């Protein structure tokens, strides 16, 4: 991983944990890793509804929303986030999802506009470089 050129503003990322689940180990690790990689990270904390997440993304003017979902509720939550982003003309915000997401669900989420789905075992480096590439065209 090489640092982005100094002139580029840091990538702003909202890390959110939607749904009722409280297991925040993954969300916190990702948030720290993105911050260590030079990004500006806003961590929403737990139990965020899709409405709260999209409104925070708008207010914080982020380029990326990272959602951590382990409970199996992704098929109810993620499409709602995507729909709200489209409604608010925020289609350029990139949504990445991490957690326990079966392959076929991951495909369906990507068809709905999710930029990437990271399953268990994905390296921090792969997540950081994906976001850099998606936002700045850099590795």
């Amino acid at each position, binding site marked *: 991983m090489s640092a982005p050129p100094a002139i580029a503003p840091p990538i702003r990322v909202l890390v959110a944990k939607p*749904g*009722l*689940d*409280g*297991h*925040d*180990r993954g969300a*916190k*690790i990702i*948030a*720290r*890793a993105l*911050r260590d990689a030079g990004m500006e*990270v806003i*961590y*929403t*904390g*737990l139990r965020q*509804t899709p409405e709260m997440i999209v409104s925070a993304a708008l207010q914080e003017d982020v380029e990326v929303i990272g959602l951590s979902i382990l*409970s*199996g*509720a*992704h*098929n*109810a*939550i993620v499409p709602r986030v995507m729909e709200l982003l489209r409604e608010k003309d925020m289609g350029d915000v990139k949504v990445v999802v991490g957690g*326990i997401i*079966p392959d076929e669900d991951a495909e369906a989420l990507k068809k709905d506009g999710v930029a990437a789905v990271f*399953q*268990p*075992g994905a*390296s*921090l*480096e792969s997540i950081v470089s994906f976001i850099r590439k998606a936002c700045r065209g850099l590795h």
Partner: protein
Amino acid sequence: MKTTERRFTTISGVPIEPLYGPEQLQGLDGNPPAPGEFPYTRGIHRDMYRGKLWTMRQFSGFATPEETNRRYHYLLQQGQTGLSVAFDLPTLMGYDADHALSEGEVGKCGASVSSLEDMEILFRGIPLGDVTVSMTINSPAAVLWAMYLAVAEQQGVDWARVSGTLQNDILKEYIAQKEYIFPPRPSMRLVTDTIEFGARHTPRFNPISISGYHIREAGSTAVQELAFTLRDGFEYVDWALERGLPIDEFAPRLSFFFNAHNDFFEEVAKYRAARKIWALAMRERYGAQSERSWKLRFHAQTAGCSLTWQQPYNNVVRTAFQAMAAVLGGAQSLHTNSLDEAYALPSEQAVTIALRTQQILAFESGVANTADPLGGSYFLEKLTAETEEAANRYIRRIDEMGGMIAAIEAGFPQSEIAAASYRYQREVETGERTIVGVNRFQSDDQPIELLEIDESAANHQSAKLAGLRKRRDNQRVTQTLDALRRAAEGTENTMPRLLDAVRAYATLGEICDALRGVFGAYQETPRL
């Protein structure tokens, strides 16, 4: 990597010597008393598993109470000796299945239980006087326990005969798992209500299972798991004493729950140190007179967070080693994870292999033939002493902060765990820690059959609730909820009021809403 370059530590970062001998044990309690003798470092029973094998208790629950009840009958037929209920997230958070926030979550992580009717279905055909049942429920634990006791009542089983365990450990929720509803102090009052009620009415039931499992799953070290759990235990003891309960009337029913992680010897040392610290504290710190108060009894579960999505069949092997650590550490009951749990709740086939793993340990491996067969190992005794010392340092620090609630409010255990979990993840990232199939020895994954839970469980549960709300005596529901509110506002024990409310078929959500109205809801400040 050459041996000279590699750092040798336990998975929690404790340095390991190339060889241990008598010189490492000088000045230490290297020769602890026999199993069954204070402070029970080597186990709480002299004859250990010859006297009674550990209870094989698979944590289980999914979709509707109807489907979970069928799984329970299956597990009991397969030779499982106790039940352990997994509830879904809406139940854990005190919402009914038809609540807006329950959308997409009903039945996904456990069984959906919104009312006494669901609890009746969950235990249909299961005699609660004979089978011991553990329930993993925390913030609304008192409500679910009231439902359980009401089902026992319907079955004609005397509460004095009902045996099992309620997890009911709210402190570790604020520390690690984050499934809390009310703020810490009213939550502690509810826990104390159950401990008090249990001491009076259910002498064979453990009203609490003080849990390190979730602390470890959140990424803590073994020492943090041990220290935070035992310090939580002291907090519950302090509150019960404050209530006026004599120590020896409730302490024997306090039970514990630890993780069984990858690092074999570190885990065995952790269980041994736990027993020693607890026994000493109960006798010295709290002046308990009864031997039963001194003995730390624990359930163990293999580490869910160690299971890999890649090459899932390897998880059978990981789980077997972890389970052996729990047994050699003297566990009273054990859950072994299924190979598919990095993906989903386990399929029937996967859970059967997990149960068979315990049966192979118990009946083929020979490790249960003699008490504490590892006792006297230079390495293990040294590691036990180091673990004890490191845990005591944390415990003193939390004492100095004014106890666990103050420490939680300051974010202390939370940030210690977050730092440990990040450090561990970086070690995996750099390859310093090997995870077979993930950062070394990768290959294509073998596909496995998974249990799928669709939205039909949610629809079924919602329809049942609608029927119940029409059928029940709604005036009685209102009256019992009003009485509960008054009890919550005052200082009387809430258990009798909770029992009245569940018997009237007030739903879990209605009861928790009544309590939310009195106690308020808790939200933590997000910290990284």
